[in-house]
């Protein structure tokens, strides 16, 4: 027998691993198999589908931008500051990752609905209503997506050596210059990865959105909501829209493959 550098997996492990793959791939294959390919283009170019696509793109990109603007400083504080209770803050910030999105929606309602003090104030003073408005969708999507960004970027900042920044300072770089020319470029790949993850999560957001922002055509009916609604009335359209989401998800993972399986 020649020595095999890769230890051979025992049969039960192979079988279970295979079943694990089947569990994930089978439903996806079903989706593709059920798709009405001939009418796919028509299904996707219906006004309802286009509205949902456009709204989803707009809100998910806005949510990603918001997650970036707020999440980057947050990640930095979590990674670098000596703030007391930092781990509590981190846990709180990551809660939306594991919270059922519907619960997130209810939480958002209690904070920003017209009947809540803050939501009422926003409405009375600025005439701003988040519920049933695209802004509400953006808020809900940011709520669920930002933790992915913060987690990714915080890990990268934590990895980078603070002494490199100190060296930059001794070379004459102001704190702002250190941030711009050293810290950010060092974690740039993680910022990209975090943004892509957050965007994908925002694009797929359903529970928090429908609960908080409602399901209004053209205003808060994003792709996943449209899929859910169309499931009875127009299954073909629902599946066509699902395929769009599937393709996007897959593309995101492929784009990030070096981060996931990096030891090949």
């Amino acid at each position, binding site marked *: 027998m020649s020595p095999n550098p890769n230890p051979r997996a025992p049969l039960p492990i192979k079988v279970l691993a295979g079943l694990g793959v089947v569990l994930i791939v089978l439903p996806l294959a079903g989706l593709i198999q059920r798709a009405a390919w001939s009418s796919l283009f028509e299904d996707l170019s219906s006004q309802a589908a286009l509205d949902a696509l456009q709204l989803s793109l707009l809100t998910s990109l806005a949510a990603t931008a918001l997650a970036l603007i707020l999440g980057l400083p947050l990640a930095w504080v979590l990674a670098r500051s000596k703030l007391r209770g930092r781990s509590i803050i981190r846990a709180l910030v990551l809660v939306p990752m594991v919270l059922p999105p519907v619960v997130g929606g209810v939480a958002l309602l209690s904070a920003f609905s017209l009947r809540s003090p803050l*939501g009422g104030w926003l409405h009375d003073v600025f005439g701003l209503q988040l519920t*049933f408005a695209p802004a509400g969708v953006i808020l809900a999507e940011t709520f669920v997506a930002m933790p992915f960004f913060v987690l990714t970027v915080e890990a990268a900042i934590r990895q980078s050596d603070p002494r490199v920044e100190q060296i930059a300072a001794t070379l004459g770089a102001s704190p702002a210059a250190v941030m711009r020319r050293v810290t950010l470029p060092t974690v740039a790949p993680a910022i990209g990865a975090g943004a892509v993850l957050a965007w994908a999560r925002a694009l797929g957001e359903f529970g928090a959105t429908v609960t908080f922002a*409602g399901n*209004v055509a053209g205003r808060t009916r994003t792709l996943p909501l449209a899929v859910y609604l169309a499931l009875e009335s127009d299954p073909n359209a629902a599946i066509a829209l699902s395929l769009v989401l599937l393709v996007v998800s897959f593309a995101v993972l492929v784009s990030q493959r*070096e981060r996931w399986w990096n*030891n090949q």
Partner: protein
Amino acid sequence: MCHLADASYPLTMSRSSKVLAALTLVVALGAAGCSDDSSTTATNDSTTTAASTPSDTCTTEGDITVSAAASLTESFTAIADDIEEECDGADITLTFDSSGKLSEQILSGAPVDVFASADEKNMDKVEDDQASTPEIFAKNNLVIVTKPGNPEGIKTLADLADAGIVALCAEDAPCGNFAGQALESANVSINESNVTRGENAKATLAAVAEGDAVAGIVYVTDALAAAESTDSVEIPESNNVIASYPIARINGPGSSELAQLFVDRVLGPEGQKHLKDAGFLAP
């Protein structure tokens, strides 16, 4: 080994996925716990029934799944509780959603033994799966629900046209279909961009009770169940739509005996009392 910069990511991911995994486990255990509970009690009970207690009146046993329109949540839960209490070996699983969703599920082979729809259209859709002739067991009216105290002063269907965001059921759910008919008969059209669509009657009601929808159209029964968090405004009979609720057994994997018992109970005086309590009209 890989270099550090890359190693960081899977490291943290694995930590978070551990959390996720732990959470999933908890959920799974919870779920398993539930079903284990019922199944063990069911088996335990059946052995005890067989061995010692020749119980009182009810000897029907087995498991069934009942799919019912969301508006039936309160009344059907009460009926199922009654039966499970009387019949030691009976285990009834209830699923509530819009009748449209439920009929779709039955058509795609969901294991359902009894189907109670909020309209006849969705009952007709599952004709091939029916194991008994559908019978109308209740009727329901539509009503306008508003915030407590009706701050917008909504009095008629026409007032909904420019009231703000109105919650309606999805067009394929019976309550959405009926609401559409009612609005049409009153010659009222609401711009779709002012309509939030709930996936069923309960979700539609929640948009008013919990969310910021100004008003909604739901069943009288739903409004009654949420009387604490909403006010209701009657829709005149001329514009109202009477929803007829049919029930039928479905060719499912559960006990047909228990399924028949459930249907009989819904149609019988005890079931009718629960339905009346919930605000339904007699068939």
